[in-house]
């Protein structure tokens, strides 16, 4: 078991695994929602250390992967406009739109900047009052507080040449969509720790009750993921469905109320398309009317967008947990991190990239 040394505390890892093996009496399937957790599971081979028949279904929790294609195309169209400086997190640079990516716009002379924090984009706007500085505000509940505060500051300081192209997505509506799907096989969830750090646990209680499904919030490190899996399996074997917190060092039940207040002021819920999945009602945030002046979609005329996905890409099935990445015919052949056909091969949190990076090229797939 070469992997155990890489868990930090190999003894604890072994004890958790022993407990899991002693607990499980039949097959179970659970979903880790977060792409960071998918990455850990594949890197450390956690799925292969679990008892036979316990399946980890990889969820849609990678913002790079689910940002809708029309939003990527819109970003590309805005970035191409003269006088625009387009700022983005580094992860989005290589995400394929219908026929191009931000890197391509850059190589044709577009002013594309990678920023670490959205505040850097506001700083650029201050320094270059003659340019329109646009920030691509994507992500789950973890990046929303940063983007919300940034727009609020831009408004307070009257920085009129700054705007935000917003495509936020939310975890709880995605869980609802997954559980309502007729093909759903998920019997338990690992909830994404830092999403809960911001939003708290309250939103998950109704989901646990409605679907009678265990939900355990946990972190991204190997031992956190193992402990989360262990707690879900104990509930499943015991016929229970509860909300549990396996990540108390970073998750308070109420979350971060200061961040929630700013997010609620700046954003409002909206229906959102998820790339590869489709429309999920009330699954996103957009700018609230008070901040509409900072909405890049309204500031720039880029409405008539026609999108085309690569016909070879099965990202939708991957993101819905219907197939594993290495079951996609293009995986590792037409599609690699260097020439990705779909977003899950681009992002470091994408399931396809994780399978590729850790050489799951043609492992037997546990079904």
């Amino acid at each position, binding site marked *: 078991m070469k992997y155990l040394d890489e868990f930090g505390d190999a003894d604890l890892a072994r004890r958790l695994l022993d407990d899991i093996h002693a607990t499980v009496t039949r097959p179970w399937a659970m979903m880790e929602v977060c792409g960071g957790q998918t990455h850990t599971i594949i890197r450390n081979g956690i799925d292969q250390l679990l008892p036979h028949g316990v399946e980890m279904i990889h969820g849609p929790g990678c913002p790079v992967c689910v940002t809708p294609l029309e939003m990527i195309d819109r970003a590309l169209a805005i970035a191409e406009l003269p006088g625009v400086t387009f700022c983005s997190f580094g992860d989005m640079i*290589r995400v394929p739109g219908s026929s191009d990516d931000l890197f391509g716009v850059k190589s044709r002379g577009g002013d594309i900047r990678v920023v670490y924090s959205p505040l850097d984009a506001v700083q650029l706007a201050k320094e270059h009052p003659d340019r329109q500085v646009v920030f691509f505000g994507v992500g789950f509940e973890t990046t929303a507080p940063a983007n919300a505060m940034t727009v609020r500051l831009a408004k307070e300081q009257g920085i009129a040449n700054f705007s935000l192209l917003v495509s936020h997505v939310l975890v709880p509506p995605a869980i609802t969509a997954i559980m309502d799907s007729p093909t759903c096989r998920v019997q338990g969830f690992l909830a994404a720790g830092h999403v809960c750090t911001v939003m708290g646990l309250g939103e998950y209680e109704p989901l646990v009750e409605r679907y009678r499904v265990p939900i355990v919030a946990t972190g991204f490190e190997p031992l956190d993921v193992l402990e989360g899996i262990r707690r879900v399996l104990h509930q499943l074997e015991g016929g229970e469905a509860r909300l549990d917190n396996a990540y108390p060092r970073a998750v308070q039940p109420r979350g*971060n109320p*200061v961040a929630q207040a700013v997010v609620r002021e700046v954003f409002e819920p909206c229906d959102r398309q998820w790339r590869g999945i489709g429309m999920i009602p009330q699954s996103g945030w957009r700018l609230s009317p008070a901040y509409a002046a900072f909405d890049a979609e309204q500031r720039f005329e880029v409405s008539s967008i026609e999108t085309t996905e690569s016909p070879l890409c099965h990202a939708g099935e991957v993101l819905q947990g219907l197939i594993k990445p290495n079951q996609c015919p293009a995986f590792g052949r037409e599609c690699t991190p260097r020439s990705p056909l779909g977003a899950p091969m681009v992002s470091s949190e994408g399931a396809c990239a994780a399978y590729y990076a850790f050489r799951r090229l043609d492992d037997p797939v546990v079904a």
Partner: protein
Amino acid sequence: MCLGVPGRVERVWEAAGIRMAEVDFGGVRKEVCLAYVPEVGVDEYVIVHVGFAITKLDEASALETLALFRSIGTLEAEFADPLAESGGSP
């Protein structure tokens, strides 16, 4: 972008009414906004997403996580600028 990285608050100041800090992520230093963790001060540890601290973290947990992230190359990946690199990721 989606990954939260723990770091240690080295220096705190106010800019335009907002608390900012220099945070050390195992050797990499970045400017971080502390608006969402008003209780945090110098020498304390925070989890940071895209330049914003979202919660305080105890020192032992933070150091463990940083050691893990360093050993598997997570820190370089998180702070890399893909436009500044010539090659691309392996």
